[in-house]
Each structure stands twice: as C-alpha cells, then as structure tokens.
C-alpha cells in the first residue's frame, strides 16, 4: 500500500507493527510465505535484500543473510517477493538493504525496479541522507522515498533534519549498536522517544530488540509503530522445511500484538 494512505489508515490505531524478514531465508518461497503471514497483522513489511556485511545487524539477521546468499539469492528474487507482497497484502512494502547492493545495481535502476514492483520505501543504513549517492532524490522522483534511521546519541539538530527528510515515518532504534539482543523498555528508552518526539512530528517506528508482547504494550501510546525483525527471523529458523510458514508467522505476529 502507498505510504500516505497507510498513515491515514493507522492514525487512530494504538500501535502498528512493522515486520521484517530476510529475503531468501530459508528459501525464496518460504520467506515470501512468512512475510505474507506477518502481513496479516503488520501494516508495514521490510524485505531485507541480504548483504554479506550487514553492519547494522546482529548475529540472527547476519546468519540468515549468509544462508540466503549461500542459497543463491539475487536482487531479482527480492523484487519478486516485493511484487507479490504489494499485490496480495495491505502492507507498505519497504526494501531494506545495504549500500553496495544498490550501488552495484545502479541507483536509478534499483529505484525504478523497486517502484515497478510495488515497493514504497527504502531503508539503507549505510546510505544516510547527505551521503546517499542520490538515493533520496531519485526515490522522490519516482514518487517513493527513503526512511531515515536514527539512534540514541544523535543530536537534536540532526533529528530535526533527518525527521524532515525521512519518508512517511522516522525509524528510531531503541538503543545503540546492532539488531538482535533484547531491549529493556525503561526510563532511558522513554526519554529517548520523548527527545525524538520533541524534534520530529512524523510517526516513529521504534525497533531493535523488540521480542515480546509486554514490550509492545509498554510502547503503546508512546510510539506509533514497533519494528520486529530478529524476533520473526528466529521464529522462521525454528520451523522445519515444509512447515506452514504463513500460518506460523501470522501467529507470531498476533502474539506480539496481543
């Protein structure tokens, strides 16, 4: 679904979910099914195009990325997943990847292909605004955009600037470091969210270490969107070949929001 339409739709929702899967893990078909399952409950879905050097990711997503690459994942496989999700679900489909995947493919070619296949946004942690090889500008030209990522430690001025440039929502990590390990939603997180809110009027998507419904409940009313990645990837890892990836992941998404 188109970003602005979705933001209108979730306006009165207590909290929305942004799910995250690694394309091609454990195989293209199963990762697509898993994503579809998540989308029964999620308003946003990130499809990670795996890169062997995922600098923002921890062991879980890194491990899944290695496996997907070893299994022969291609960018075209990623676009196939994106297309299917954009046609069969109500979620905003976001491509998450790393700089060299986009750069090597060609920035404009990548954006054009993404748009054609129904992607609505990009998250590329190592192509931040101001040093993005023209990704934001190109995406804008095609009527889509780049979601900027910020972490604790970023100053007010930069939060304002990146919030302003970010497409639709601002991706905020709950803590420093990389994806994976659980985050305690405590006073420190709340203070950080408050700092972001003071400097950015867009909805925020809070991620990194979201693994339980108690965390989601604690965040309800404080942030518009929660992001869960390693949680879903771990769930996928626990399933054996031939499992009902769609059904199981739908259940996992529902549990998170319960």
């Amino acid at each position, binding site marked *: 679904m188109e970003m602005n339409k979705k933001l209108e739709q979730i306006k009165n929702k207590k909290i929305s979910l942004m799910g995250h899967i690694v394309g091609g893990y454990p195989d293209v078909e199963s990762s697509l099914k898993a994503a579809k399952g998540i989308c029964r409950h999620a308003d946003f879905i990130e499809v990670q195009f795996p890169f062997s050097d995922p600098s923002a990711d921890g062991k879980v997503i890194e491990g899944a990325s290695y496996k997907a690459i070893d299994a022969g994942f291609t960018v075209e496989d990623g676009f196939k997943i994106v297309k299917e999700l954009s046609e069969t679900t109500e979620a905003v489909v976001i491509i998450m990847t790393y700089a060299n995947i986009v750069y090597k493919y060609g920035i404009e070619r990548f954006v054009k292909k993404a748009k054609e296949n129904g992607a609505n946004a990009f998250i590329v942690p190592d192509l931040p605004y101001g040093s993005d090889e023209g990704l934001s500008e190109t995406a804008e030209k095609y009527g889509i955009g780049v979601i900027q990522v910020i972490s604790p430690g970023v100053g007010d001025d*930069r939060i304002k600037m990146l919030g302003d440039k970010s497409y639709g929502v601002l991706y905020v990590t709950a803590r420093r470091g990389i994806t994976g390990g659980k985050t305690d939603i405590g006073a420190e997180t709340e203070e950080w969210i408050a700092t972001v809110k003071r400097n950015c009027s867009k909805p925020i998507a809070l991620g990194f270490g979201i693994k339980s419904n108690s965390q989601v409940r604690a965040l309800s009313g404080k942030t518009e969107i929660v992001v869960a990645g390693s949680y879903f990837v771990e769930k996928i890892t626990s399933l054996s070949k031939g499992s009902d990836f769609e059904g199981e992941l739908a259940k996992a998404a529902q549990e998170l929001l319960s």
Partner: protein
Amino acid sequence: MGDYFKNTPNEKGYFGEYGGSFIPPELQKEMDRITDAYYAISKSHQFIEELRSIRKHFQGRPTPVYFAKRLSNELGGRIYLKREDLNHTGAHKLNHCMGEALLAKYMGKKKLIAETGAGQHGVALATAAAYFGLECEIHMGEVDIAKEHPNVVRMKILGATVVSVTHGLKTLKEAVDSAFEAYLKDPVNSIYCIGSVVGPHPFPMMVRDFQRVVGIEAREQFLEMTGELPDNVVACVGGGSNAMGMFTAFLDDADCKLYGVEPAGRSTKIGDHAATITYGKPGIIHGFKCYLLQDEKGEPLPVYSIASGLDYPGVGPEHSMLHDLKKVNYTSVTDSECVDAFFDLSRKEGIIPALESSHAVAYAMKLAKDNPRQSILVNLSGRGDKDIDFIVENYGIRK
C-alpha cells in the same frame, strides 16, 4: 603540492569520487568529532612536538634508507630500501598508531579498538596503548590467529585483549566487521583506530598524514645519498597505508614512477588473490567507496594472499583515485614470487622481510632486471620474524 593536501580529500572526505562516509548518523557524529579534533590538534604546537619527540625517542626514527648492494649487483639496477622494518615493533604501522593513540588521549578516550590481519597493526596499537596507558581491544580472524601466533602473544604481553573472530572466512574483512561492532557499542569512550588508509572519513586522510613521515624522510635521505631522486618507487598495497606514506612525497616528481604492488596470490581465480585495483570495480564497503573485489550482485568476494596483511577486498580511496588519474601504476606479484624475494633478501642482504613487504621487493627485483640503469626505492614496510614459522612449515628452508 601544498594544494594537493589541502584539497585531497575534500571537506566531505572524498578523494575524487572515492572515500566519503557511508555510515549511520550516530556514528557520523562521532566521526565528525574525530575530524574536528584531528584538524584542531594537528595544528597545535604541543601535539606536533609530542609526536615528533615520540618518533625520535620511542620509535627510533628516522629509519635509514639502505642501499642493497649485493642484491643490486646480482640483478642490475640499484635497489634502495626504506627500512620501516627498523621502526619500533618492526613495521610502519606504529607511525599511525602513535598518532591515533595520541589523538585518542587528547580526546579523552579510554579504549582503543581495532582489527588486525597479520597482527602488525594490532601489535603496534597495543604498543601505543601501553605507552599512553589506554585500554586496547584487538579483533583478529581465527585463521590469522593461528598463522600469526607470535604477534598474538606479543599483543597479550603488551596488555591488549585479543578477540577471536570466527565468522565468514575468519580473516581481515570479518575482523573489521567485528571491531566495528564492538566500537558501535560505545563510541563515546572508545575510538576505532583503523589499521590502514581505509574506512570512513577522516581515517584515510588521518592515517595517510601520520604515515607521510616515511616518504618525507625517504625522499630527503635518498637525495642526500645519491644527489638525485629515485627513478622508481615501489610499495606493497593492502589497504595502502605504507604505500600512501611513501607515494605522497613523490606525487609532484614527474620523473619518479610509482608502483603499488598488490597480492596476486596463487592464481587469478576468484578467492585466490586480493589484487583489488587490478581486478576490482568501484563499490562501497566498510563505510567508504573504493575499488572493490565484488561479484555482480555487489557482494564482496572472498580474498586470499600469503601475506595476511594484504588480503582485503577493498583498498584505500586515495589509491583508487590515483589509479584513475594514472599517477601510480598498480601491478601485482604472486605468492611464489613473494617467497622467492623473501629468501633472496634474507640471503643476500641479511634482512628477513615481512611477506607483505616481500611483494614490493619482488616487484623491485623485476624492475631492476629490466632496467639495469635505474634506481629503485622500495618501502620495506616490515620485518619478517612473524612469518618464519609459516614459511618454514610450508616452504621449508631453501638451500
């Protein structure tokens, strides 16, 4: 020349189209701090004096330039060696480590974090940390830990913590990932002291600047010894720090030919070499743009070299630019040529070179044979004590 260093890199850290800073915003903030601190400090009299004194009294600089007489007589040509093997800790790496650690001290950092391939950078940084009383954490691939055992022990004796990296190919690239990850956890109290002229701005510039001492000394020494400039200047290129240190002194000398020697490994097949500029294409890795050995999807390719300090799929952005500008000739040398040079220099001159530096020596020997009238200045970036077990086990002791 003054202009070259003023404008290269530009204020955003670009060397032509290479370099830059492809990192998340919170890390960018720390890099900006390091950049600001570096600019401020590198103009401070106190900093310059302290570094100068360290170089002289602690590192033993200037290192000599030495005429390799027996080797030259045998091959033709005149081969001169800039003896970075005589720099304290046995390689050029200490030049930038002392600079980075001094900067860390001025910035109030408590801990130095870095990756290492051959262990030379790790040993140098552990040495710098001990000198300044800072903590030190070195990340090293499991494969390299086994291969470079003596350096691992040296780091530990110097008080550093050595973290074994067990993912992927378990070598230099993975060590960079791991060290970066550790740094990301606490960029306020720690500083990443990168081991070469790579990574996001300001590292390629800063490490180059700290290494310039090599070229500045060597040019002056060579002139004093021979009354002229060298016809050829040769250095090995992994990330490219020793080569940048050397080349920057000769960029204006149109008659000096500069040669960067990459590791051609055991074959031209993927995964058998690390000749980045020779076979790579521009790409983005570890926060900067450079020539990169990568597949059609943009995945960095596996790399290999007999010299652990050279097996990296990327290369310094300034080298990438100098290649495009044709200011430096990038060429390569195989494992077997490297081993030949290792023994030749040991036997003919009584100097056991590091396997990394042996690549430069091997190419200089080729040049000498082909150009008997010319002079060749080689950056002998390090000594080979660390490599002797590996060589004896795999190649035996040559007769």
